[in-house]
């Protein structure tokens, strides 16, 4: 992931969780960050707002790590631009 995108996502995590977080590609969003389903939903919506896209529910279900999230956002951004 690009450093800027990592920073952006990290900032959004911190806004949703209300505490500092340290993330890598392998960070598991539920296990490592201790998010419950509501937290994940709020986080996904914050990501959607920031990048101006909607992540369909089947795609959300496939996201486990930060790398999965980056991939989903990048795919959808490319899809939107096409």
């Amino acid at each position: 992931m690009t450093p800027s995108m990592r920073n952006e996502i990290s900032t959004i995590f911190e806004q949703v969780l209300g505490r500092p977080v340290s993330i890598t590609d392998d960070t598991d969003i539920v296990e490592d960050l201790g998010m419950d389903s509501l937290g994940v939903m709020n986080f996904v919506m914050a990501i959607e707002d920031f990048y101006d896209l909607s992540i369909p529910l089947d795609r959300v279900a496939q996201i486990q790590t930060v790398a999965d999230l980056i991939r989903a956002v990048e795919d959808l951004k490319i899809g939107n631009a096409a």
Partner: protein
Amino acid sequence: MTILAKHAGYRQAYDALLAHGVDPLNVQFDSVLSPTEGVLNGQTTILLGTNNYLGLTFDPDCIEKAVQATREQGTGTTGSRVANGTYNGHTELEKAVADFYGRKHAMVFSTGYQANLGVLSTLVGRGDHLMLDADSHASIYDGSRLGMAEVIRFRHNNPDDLYKRLRRLEGVPGDRMIVVEGIYSMLGDTAPLKEFAAVKRETGAYLLVDEAHSLGVLGETGRGLAEAEGVEGDVDFIVGTFSKSLGSVGGFCVSDAADFDIMRIVCRPYMFTASLPPGVVASTIEALKKLRAEPALRASLMRNAKRLYDGLSAMGFQTGPEANPIVAVTMPDQETAVVFWKLLLESGLYLNLALPPATPTNACLLRTSVSAAHTTQQIDRALDIFADVGRRLGFLPSDRRRAAGAL
């Protein structure tokens, strides 16, 4: 370890509940006496959590019609309408529902849950876009998974968020279907339907409203939120249930869509399940007649709802945003919620303990649903029990007597 070990997380959470000596998900009634009373552990208990909005479950005419139909046509249809045929009652019920809504078509399902499974998996398909309110009922989420449409969730009751998401789909092929509910089952809040209708018109989407909790409750003639908000012309499909205000079981969908009847040969949750038994069909038709003929039921319901809502709010309990027949009290945490619920039950008041993940914003709720059949005395008794338990747990913010005086 068994194949079910994968649910260990739920087992752990459930065991923690059971450790309080209660099983809120499996309350065992000795008997049910009326729409508003049952017997629990030998104690007569006020039922304040059974969605029996119009109190028609013991209506003598509905019972008589059910008995008569059962005698004449048997206890069940033993299969689907596709395989075993349609009974006169099925057709009569569909005509009655269509007539009530002033729509060309109605289709009846065996439960409200199946109505959502059927409609949502059939109206949209691969390449279409299903826009769901984030707080949608489980049947809506499950229906969305049964079909092949892309599912996008928008913020609860937020037409701007919906609009933003539809705007992102500009130029993308496929139909768009917006799904909202009349009254949301946990907090009793209603959808801002005028605003959603405006978004629908501007974006060319279809609009489906689930009126499960608002049929017989809202609107001049009881048709629900779309009627109350004056936007029925913008609603393409209405889904609902017979199991709440009509006191039986079953679901339906009404619409003016010209080719609606194709659903009967493509909608799997309609085709591959047993149809409603004659007794259920007959009592439902009679209950719908009562709903239409007796607007006083709706007036009693709303009077009771307001009395409970105002009473609880005045005591300082945190209630939902509006006085509807669903009145939910938010508890500070799960521990308090469970203990509070247990004490209410022991005092002779039954209602629903609603915990995450079944609740919006992870709230722990004491969820009540009021009936037209509740007497003023029953509502006041419920308020007294709430006040008493609140005092015993030491967190009732204001004195009951002073609060009552302020009403």
